[in-house]
């Protein structure tokens, strides 16, 4: 089916007002839908919802809320002032409905563990204590035997349990450190608060942080000491900061792109009103696109959040081509309708080819599980098609309207000479040599491109002040453990046992540091230990008369720890159980697994995930672990797997569409050559600038393929239209228009570069390199090849 562009133009010409009104109505409707789009800033949202790790993480968030507390770090020159402020803040926050618990320090925990120290000893050590008491009693009895010979100088003292006390004492915990969690630098204290809401509830998280900040301001830290500083740490703070960054980036990238493109097209056309014919239909198409996005996807993720800027830069190209051709036709003396017919029939046809090629290339990304590809591909593909429709129908309608209202004047008496002067491409051989050299250099260094495994480099720069005090390791460990949800104690114990078995089997190569459930805080072998403790009590009571005064004092100190009972979860202090509690404060049965390796390195995260994400316990059940790091690891693996497929598939789709359009394999090869060369050059630039490939900038490669092909398609179409010997004309007309469109697209992507989120920054940077390379190769290499082919043909 061939599209009759001429009939379309005639229809538009006679119904321009109606078309504008319908388009406007559609835009208003779509805009209201698009305004309901949610922003999902969590990296987990880049994986499919049916992934086990994602499903488990969602269950964890639903049940547990946030993993780990929100930590309020109070630093200053006077530790006592920090502690006073901590207590004042804790007093104010403890009745907050947004918090289920406020934990000042570890006093309760230390005292509890101290009181129950005999129950928390290893059974073997408790048996050792029992044996020592037996030995002491026996020794005292033996001393009464006339056959006993003691050692005067080296007599052993069985009641000396200082070695065991040293083993179980919390080393170095004295002074403030015994009661409070100090920063790693020792210059501050940490207050831990547990929110009642879930971490994914952005409104709750923002309200929570706002309320706490308000409370802090009310208490006024400087009243305690002028040097006091209060900062936040933990997953709630990170989620909020990440969301803020994404929203901020969304606004800034859109604004930069809008203003930059507007400025560029105003300069290019030297018309104040000209941007309106292009920008208004484009804004309408964006409204339709994001309305459809709401219907189909429902949200934007941390990658697609930048698409307003990108689509603005991308869609404006169609408008520039349309208006440039229309202006050219009008300057040649054609009336409005004839100029529009020429514009839409010629340029519109080429635009359709490039738009369909690009859209299909992006739609091909839908196959990917990685939403960074699939949702990106869907929105860009839809956006391009809507932009095409808007520029072929709505933009001409606006042109007819402003022409009728005589708001612009485009007709000139004489046609500019450069628009009709033909000529050959001047330096085809030199161009080819330089192109080959640049491509060879890039390909030679291709394998030297590193991959960014450091997750820290891929986290948003929240632009917050670096806190003076950092979180100590013991609290860091509890900040981002992998979680395994279990339903009861039996299951939790099975998981813990299986993970310990895996740890033992792997030995030093295991990436697991520790595994625990809330039941891990209960002493093991309690019946056996309680029997020993009861026996100790009896032995000490029965043999008290054997002991001298010093021994009795020591026995009495031991006796104070003998008055214990079997501990249950209800006996445990909140300090211990809180990290295993639901957002409502109910103690939950789940397992935390902490890594022994820094998970910021993706290779470690992958190894850790491989070790624990699927746990086949001895009870026959399979359990799944999840965490932000496991999600990152899976995303990394998925992206590495999908990226190559995405690049190959988009290239394949582009080639097929080109073959349908051009109906000639050699022509397809000619048009693809600048694109493939440009892709090689991008890797060369990345090598030169020491950029690493990462999970975000790799998204840019299919993007470059989809967008970069347009330049060559336009040059080739115009060359075929203008005929042999027209390359100079092609470059002066289409080439200049391509410069404008490339610049406008680049302006769109340039809007991403100042973004704080690395996803946007890296997509922006690499796309800029790609777009620039595609333009240069399309206006140099392709004409050079066409020129050489002309020479060979003649």
């Amino acid at each position, binding site marked *: 089916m061939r599209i009759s562009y001429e009939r379309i133009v005639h229809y538009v010409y006679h119904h321009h007002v109606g078309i504008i009104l319908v388009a406007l109505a559609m835009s208003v409707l779509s805009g209201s839908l698009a305004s309901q789009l949610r922003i999902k800033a969590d990296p987990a949202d880049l994986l499919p919802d049916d992934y086990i790790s994602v499903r488990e993480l969602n269950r964890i968030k639903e049940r547990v809320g946030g993993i780990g507390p929100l930590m309020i770090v109070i630093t200053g020159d006077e530790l006592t002032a920090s502690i006073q402020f901590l207590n004042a803040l804790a007093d104010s926050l403890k009745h907050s409905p947004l918090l289920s618990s406020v934990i000042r320090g570890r006093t309760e925990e230390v005292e509890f563990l101290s009181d129950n120290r005999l129950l928390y000893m290893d059974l073997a050590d408790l048996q050792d204590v029992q044996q020592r008491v037996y030995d002491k009693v026996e020794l005292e*009895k033996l001393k*009464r*035997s*006339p056959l006993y*010979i003691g050692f005067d100088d080296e007599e052993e003292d069985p009641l000396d349990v200082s070695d065991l006390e040293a083993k179980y004492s919390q080393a170095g915990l004295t002074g403030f450190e015994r009661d409070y969690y100090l920063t790693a630098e020792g210059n501050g204290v940490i207050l831990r608060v547990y929110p009642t809401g879930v971490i994914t509830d952005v409104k709750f998280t923002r309200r929570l942080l706002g309320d706490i900040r308000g409370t802090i301001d009310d208490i006024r830290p400087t009243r305690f000491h002028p040097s006091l500083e209060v900062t936040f740490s933990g997953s709630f703070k990170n989620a909020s900061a990440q969301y803020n960054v994404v929203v901020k980036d969304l606004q800034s990238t859109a604004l930069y792109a809008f203003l930059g493109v507007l400025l560029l097209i105003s300069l290019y056309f030297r018309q104040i009103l000209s941007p309106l014919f292009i920008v208004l239909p484009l804004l309408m198409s964006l409204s339709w696109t994001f309305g459809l996005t709401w219907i189909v996807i429902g949200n934007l993720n941390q990658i697609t959040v930048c698409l307003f800027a990108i689509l603005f830069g991308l869609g404006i190209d169609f408008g520039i081509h349309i208006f440039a051709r229309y202006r050219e036709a009008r300057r040649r003396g054609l009336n409005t309708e004839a100029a529009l017919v020429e514009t839409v029939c010629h340029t519109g046809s080429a635009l359709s080819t490039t738009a369909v090629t690009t859209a299909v290339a992006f739609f091909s990304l839908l196959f990917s599980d990685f939403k960074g590809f699939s949702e990106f591909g869907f929105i860009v593909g839809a956006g391009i098609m809507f932009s095409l429709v808007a520029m072929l129908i709505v933009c001409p309608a606006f042109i007819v309207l402003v022409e009728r209202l005589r708001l612009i004047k485009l007709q000139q008496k004489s046609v500019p000479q450069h628009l009709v002067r033909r000529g050959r491409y001047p330096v085809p051989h030199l161009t080819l040599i330089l192109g080959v050299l640049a491509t060879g250099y890039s390909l030679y260094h291709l394998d030297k491109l590193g991959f960014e495994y450091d997750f820290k480099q891929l986290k948003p720069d929240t632009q917050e002040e670096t806190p003076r005090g950092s979180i100590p390791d013991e609290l860091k460990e509890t900040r981002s453990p992998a979680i395994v949800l279990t339903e009861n104690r039996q299951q939790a114990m099975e998981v813990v046992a299986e993970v310990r078995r895996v740890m033992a089997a792997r030995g030093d190569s295991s990436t697991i540091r520790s595994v625990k459930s809330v039941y891990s805080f209960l002493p093991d072998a309690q019946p056996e230990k309680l029997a020993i403790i009861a026996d100790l009590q009896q032995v000490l009571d029965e043999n008290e008369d054997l002991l001298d005064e010093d021994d009795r004092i020591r026995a009495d100190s031991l006796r104070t720890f003998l008055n214990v009972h079997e501990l249950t979860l209800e006996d445990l202090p909140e300090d211990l159980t809180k990290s295993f509690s639901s957002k409502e404060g109910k103690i939950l049965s789940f397992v935390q697994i902490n890594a022994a390796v820094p998970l910021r390195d993706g290779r470690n995260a992958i190894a850790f995930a491989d070790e624990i994400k699927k746990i086949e316990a001895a009870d026959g059940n399979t359990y799944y672990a999840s965490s932000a790091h496991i999600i990152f690891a899976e995303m990394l693996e998925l992206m590495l797997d999908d990226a190559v497929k995405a690049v190959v598939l988009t290239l394949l789709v582009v080639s097929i569409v080109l073959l349908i359009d051009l109906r000639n394999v050699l022509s397809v090869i000619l048009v693809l050559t600048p694109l493939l060369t440009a892709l090689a050059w991008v890797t060369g630039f990345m090598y030169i600038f020491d950029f690493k490939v990462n999970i975000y900038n790799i998204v840019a490669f299919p993007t470059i393929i989809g967008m970069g092909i347009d330049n060559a398609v336009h040059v080739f179409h115009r060359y075929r239209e203008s005929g042999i010997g027209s390359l100079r004309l092609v470059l002066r007309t289409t080439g200049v228009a391509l410069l404008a469109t490339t610049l406008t697209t680049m302006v769109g992507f340039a809007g991403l570069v100042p973004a704080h989120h690395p996803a946007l920054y890296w997509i922006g940077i690499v796309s800029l390199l790609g777009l620039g390379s595609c333009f240069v190769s399309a206006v140099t290499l392709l004409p050079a090849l066409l020129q050489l082919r002309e020479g060979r043909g003649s």
Partner: protein
Amino acid sequence: MKTLGVLCCLLLTAASVHGATEDAQVALKQPTPTAFLEAHDGRVRAIVLRDSTDSLTADEREQVRLLINEAFDFRELSRQSLGDTWDARTDAEREEFVSVYRGIIERQNLDMFVRYHRDGGIAYTGEQIGEDGRAVVLGEVPVKKEKKIIAYSLHRPDPGKQWQIYDLTVDGAGTVAGNRRAWSRYIARNSYEKLLEGLRKKLAKLEGAG
């Protein structure tokens, strides 16, 4: 508890003294270990209670010392206390060890025997003789309204000879087992030579004090 220890000492003293003052053949006539112990009790009391004061003459002290030698088998006590270490010693080394051990016991406990010889009063409540000919005699000693159990381990070193005590278990704590535990730990940490050296020093100290 001290009282209990003292009673044991008294018993030993009594047995020793009695043995020293009567004909050794009297002991041989006792067919059972309990009878042996009771016979010795009588003889010991006769010496120890001879004077109303706690002190003994040099002659009486010598008699007590000889009775200790007669009633106790220090060689067996040393053998069992040293365990494997005993097996590795030469005859001369064994004799030296027994001599030192005996010397310490005689001197270390003699004053206690003398000082408290008037206390005590033991009732033998039972005896068991194993197939190997070794016997355990149980005795009850009144201490602070309670009765403590003392188990005497006896044997006849040679058939036809009198019974001899080689171990005392006071309130469940056996001297041989206690010695063996303490000495084996000491030897493992130091050496047998160091143990013997320590005992020699102890003996020398006691002799010096005596």
